């Protein structure tokens, strides 16, 4: 065991059992999986993806590039970093050989999202972030502070309790301040436009199987901030050398964090290889904890303070040296040293832990995503934010700014981080017009950074590599098994851009997205090309900063509430009466109402449709047409407006009358059709097709507001205001007469294409004599609160006549028998009214209307455009496929075959005594009577071309 008897921010009173790679272990609350494994002496946790090399734990946070695991319990989750999994009772995990495994069963977890608004968002609750948040909170601002750890403190958590009392007091003050939201276990993973930051909160993962069922496991916080302060710290970066991937090779700060935060001494004989002063504190603390420590530092001008400290605790220091390689298999057993810069191997030092520090990379991901500019700092060997992004300003939204403070801005000392956090908050508040004073920094000791660090990407190589050496073990990207040689191969191949090198080598594309490898790859590339890394730059910092599960992003928009189910007022009746439904856009519409058959089964669709159509053609039937879009149009210019919209004239329509109308787009193609009812001189009600309701209203509003603002016309959606019930069939008059005794339903008094007001069961109804079936029909419109009552009344009144409810399929058959097109089925956005044979609906008198000019284009004038025609299979028992292609010839031996068009609608018809179809066919109206062939899935069906109207061509039935 490597757990020390005391120390750390873990709860030693509670023991958590967990399983890793099939073996049982124990840890404590406060542990990560990584710290618990190290406490149990487990260093090797994974296997590299391509080369099968043992891999261990190299970090203590999200920058981990090596220790990838698969969670198995309580629920499988692929590819997580062991350093970011909080330990819980019953955790089962295994090390990954590069690829994760998805569960084969549904995820029982809940996920949700929450919007939050604030004046100041602080990302990162380290010293800079705490100071920024406190400064903003004391100024009375609305503050959100997010941090990915379960407790605040950031880098302080890896120290021997530095400022821990202060951190606790700041947290206490923040959480007790109104208008301050502190979110722990929350990673801000993306900056989007205008102060919009997305953050993922892991809310119950640390509870394991004990997580409450009703709690969202993870939550996406959608944070809209006026000012964003990024106090995201920095990631230590390694130095690349041979066999730098062995378990037991770790970042220096990670070694210190495991010691101080988790009470784990990760090795007993430790080599600390550093190019800068920051790792010395780790060396000293580890030595004081009982380890035998050797420091290897390529610099020769060592800081006197640290030299003295090392001497004090018995650390051997090897200045002017560096690590060029390691030994060991499952765990590092020793390091090779060489003199620097002269080269030449000098010694091998035995060890069981190698800590490495090559300097620090400020965490600039969010800043870069916000559009912030980065500049290379040669002294730090890192890209730093040039300045904040103040005042990008959304109109009317207040000032929006993005600032960076603390180590993310390149601050090195704790004192600078603290002061910087407060200063950035003051500046941010000032941009918001809030005068604030920085809160006072807590007292800290003098930071012991005395000597400039050495920027070193990779240890020089002992042997010359020609760039194709597959035995190279100097890993730049551990997860991708990509080495220095790979980078050199890329530059040798002619590549000059870091983006190309990234793609050639795959460096930076793995789970860690190159947090520790990206800059090093740039550095090695720059050196190889002999250019300045400042000019070469880095690859892009794409969101998300850390990986986010698909389910978290989907949130609650899943299953039953994935997308709205729109229903009509009469919907409960349809359910009660066994309707089968069809999705039409977001609506559920009854497709048909199957009945029980004598044998106890359900009628199949052809049987239902035969029964329903027969009722409509010979008796009476009714359907729920409420999904039709309805638009109330009012204003003295309403008629003029509609004249411009529709292809036919509307203004001549008289109150009390109804007209069928077609509208086109500017391109002259049919957009929609429906009826126009004139309610009064200055008031109309239009209907649209179900699927186009929103589109048509938007289109009319666009024209009314932007093209013709001079017209006095107002549009209001009344789609849900009215329940619409067509009552169809030769006996429909009797039914209407029964429910509306005061209404004269005679053809003379209530003619075709007129409408009347009448009371039905006491409810004011608008009844239109319109027909989409060719039969005598009435369309009953009532306020939708009374939809079911009136439907029921009609149903009851129709019982003596065998009234039959019908669905969309029967509706389609009835209209197709009459050659009435369905927009979107018989048209596809390339069809004009003339193509449908509906020139009669296109006004010749009107000077202009939407789409008119397009009719005279060359293409519209072609005689061989496709026309809507009817098709009768020669064998009337054969049902054409909707979508069958129409051919002039049945010889299809030579591909490609010229196609004349396609079957748009096809049904079995009781009324027609067989099957029939509608089709769009090139020069179709000139081919009436011809024999053509429908080709469907290899079958050739001979058909005869007819006009589109196949039933009651003389229109004798509409008046009953």
């Amino acid at each position, binding site marked *: 065991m490597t757990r020390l008897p005391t120390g750390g921010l873990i709860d030693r009173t509670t023991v958590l059992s967990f399983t890793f790679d099939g073996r049982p272990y124990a840890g404590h609350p406060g542990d990560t999986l990584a710290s618990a494994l190290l406490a149990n002496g487990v260093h090797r946790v994974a296997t590299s993806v391509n080369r099968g090399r043992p891999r261990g734990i190299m970090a203590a946070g999200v920058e981990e590039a090596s220790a990838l695991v698969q969670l198995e319990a309580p629920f499988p989750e692929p590819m997580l970093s062991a350093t970011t999994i909080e330990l819980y009772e019953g955790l089962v995990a295994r090390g990954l050989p590069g690829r994760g495994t998805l569960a084969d069963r549904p995820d029982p977890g809940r996920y949700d999202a929450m919007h939050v608004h604030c004046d100041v968002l602080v990302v990162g609750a380290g010293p800079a972030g705490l100071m920024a948040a406190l400064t903003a909170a004391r100024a009375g601002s609305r503050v959100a502070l997010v941090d990915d750890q379960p407790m605040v403190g950031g880098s302080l958590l890896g120290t021997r309790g530095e400022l821990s009392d202060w951190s606790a007091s700041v947290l206490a003050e923040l959480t007790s301040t109104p208008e301050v939201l502190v979110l722990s276990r929350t990673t801000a993973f993306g900056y*989007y*436009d*205008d*102060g*919009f930051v997305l953050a993922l909160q892991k809310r119950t993962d640390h509870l394991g199987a004990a997580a409450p069922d009703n709690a969202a496991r993870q939550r996406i916080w959608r944070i*809209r901030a006026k000012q964003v302060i990024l106090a995201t710290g920095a990631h230590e970066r390694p130095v690349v050398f041979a066999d730098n991937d062995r378990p037991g090779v770790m970042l220096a700060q990670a070694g210190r964090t495991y010691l101080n935060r988790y009470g784990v001494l990760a090795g007993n004989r430790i080599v600390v290889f550093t190019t800068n002063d920051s790792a010395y504190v780790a060396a000293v603390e580890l030595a004081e904890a009982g380890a035998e420590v050797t420091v290897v530092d390529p610099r020769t001008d060592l800081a006197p303070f640290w030299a003295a400290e090392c001497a004090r605790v018995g650390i051997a220091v090897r200045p002017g040296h560096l690590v060029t390689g390691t030994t060991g298999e499952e765990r590092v057993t020793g390091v090779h040293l060489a003199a620097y810069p002269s080269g030449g191997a000098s010694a091998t030092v035995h060890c069981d832990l190698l800590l490495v520090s090559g300097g620090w990379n400020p965490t600039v991901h969010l800043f870069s995503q916000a*559009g912030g500019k980065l500049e290379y700092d040669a002294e730090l060997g890192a890209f730093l934010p040039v300045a904040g992004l103040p005042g*990008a300003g*959304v*109109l*009317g*939204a207040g000032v929006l700014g993005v600032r960076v403070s603390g180590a993310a801005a390149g601050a090195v000392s704790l004192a600078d981080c603290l002061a910087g956090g407060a200063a950035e908050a003051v500046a941010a508040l000032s941009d918001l017009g809030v005068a604030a004073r920085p809160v006072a920094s807590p007292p800290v000791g003098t930071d012991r950074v005395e000597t400039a660090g050495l920027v070193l990407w990779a240890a020089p190589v002992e042997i010359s590599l020609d760039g194709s050496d597959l035995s190279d073990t100097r890993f730049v990207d551990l997860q991708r098994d990509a080495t220095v040689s790979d980078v050199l191969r890329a530059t040798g191949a002619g590549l000059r851009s870091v983006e190309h090198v990234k793609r050639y080598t795959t460096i930076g594309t793995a789970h860690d997205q190159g947090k520790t490898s990206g800059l090093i790859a740039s550095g090695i590339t720059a050196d190889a090309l002999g250019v300045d890394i400042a000019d070469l730059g880095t690859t892009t910092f794409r969101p998300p900063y850390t990986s986010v599960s698909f389910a978290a992003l989907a949130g609650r928009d899943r299953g039953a509430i994935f997308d709205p189910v729109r229903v009509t007022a009469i919907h409960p009746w349809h359910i009660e009466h066994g309707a089968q439904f069809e999705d039409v856009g977001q609506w559920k519409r009854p497709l048909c109402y199957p009945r029980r058959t004598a044998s106890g089964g359900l009628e199949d669709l052809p049987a239902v449709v035969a029964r329903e159509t027969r009722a409509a053609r010979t008796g009476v039937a009714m359907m729920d047409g409420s999904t039709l879009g309805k638009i109330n149009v009012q204003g003295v210019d309403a008629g003029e407006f509609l004249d411009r919209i529709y292809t036919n004239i509307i203004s001549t329509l008289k109150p009390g009358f109804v007209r069928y109308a077609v509208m086109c787009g*500017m*391109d002259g193609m049919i957009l929609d059709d429906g009826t126009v009812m004139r309610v009064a001189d200055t008031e109309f009600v239009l209907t649209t097709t179900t699927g186009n309701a929103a589109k048509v209203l*938007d289109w009319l*509003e*666009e024209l009314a*507001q*932007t*093209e013709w*603002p001079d017209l006095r016309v107002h549009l209001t959606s009344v789609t849900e205001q009215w329940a619409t019930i067509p009552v169809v069939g030769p006996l429909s008059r009797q039914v209407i007469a029964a429910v509306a005794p005061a209404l004269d339903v005679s053809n003379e008094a209530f003619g075709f294409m007129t409408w009347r007001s009448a009371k039905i069961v006491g409810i004011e109804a608008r009844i239109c004599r319109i027909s989409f079936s060719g039969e005598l029909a009435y369309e009953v419109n009532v306020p939708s609160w009374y939809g079911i009552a009136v439907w029921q009344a009609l149903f009851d009144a129709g019982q003596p006549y065998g009234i039959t409810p019908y669905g969309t399929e029967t509706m389609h058959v009835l209209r197709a028998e009459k050659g009435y097109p369905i927009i979107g089925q018989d048209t596809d956005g390339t069809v004009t009214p003339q193509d449908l044979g509906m020139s009669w609906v296109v006004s010749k008198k009107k*000077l*202009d209307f939407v789409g*008119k*000019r*397009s009719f*005279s*284009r*060359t293409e519209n004038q072609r005689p061989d455009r496709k026309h809507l025609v009817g098709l009768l299979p020669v064998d009337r028992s054969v049902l054409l496929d909707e979508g069958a292609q129409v051919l002039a010839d049945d010889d299809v031996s030579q591909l490609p075959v010229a196609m004349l068009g396609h079957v748009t609608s096809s049904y079995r018809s009781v009324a027609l005594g067989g099957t029939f179809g509608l089709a769009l066919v090139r020069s179709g109206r000139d081919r009436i009577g011809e024999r053509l062939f429908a080709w469907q899935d290899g079958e050739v069906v001979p058909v005869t071309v007819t006009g589109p109207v196949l039933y009651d061509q003389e229109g004798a039935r509409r008046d009953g």
Partner: protein
Amino acid sequence: MQLISCPWCGPREEAEYHYGGQAHVAYPHEVGALSDADWAHYLFFRDNPRGPFAERWVHAAGCRRWFNAVRDTGTHEILAVYRIGEPQPELGRQASR
């Protein structure tokens, strides 16, 4: 997600709006007199600059009003919003990067 300022309702999330393309493309007078080419240009040809672009939006989920905006298509930053009928404001800005 962008914030777009409706001239009436103020800043709202982009999801509340529908995009309407280039602004100030008037329906031509006397369309019957237009050549096919001129009509095609009205129908299908729109500016597509990188940089400031006067365009139309409608606050579809809000007040349903159409309005105009000048937005930098390179940075997505909205430089001005103005109501239908108001002239396009002069902007001293240069095109984006």
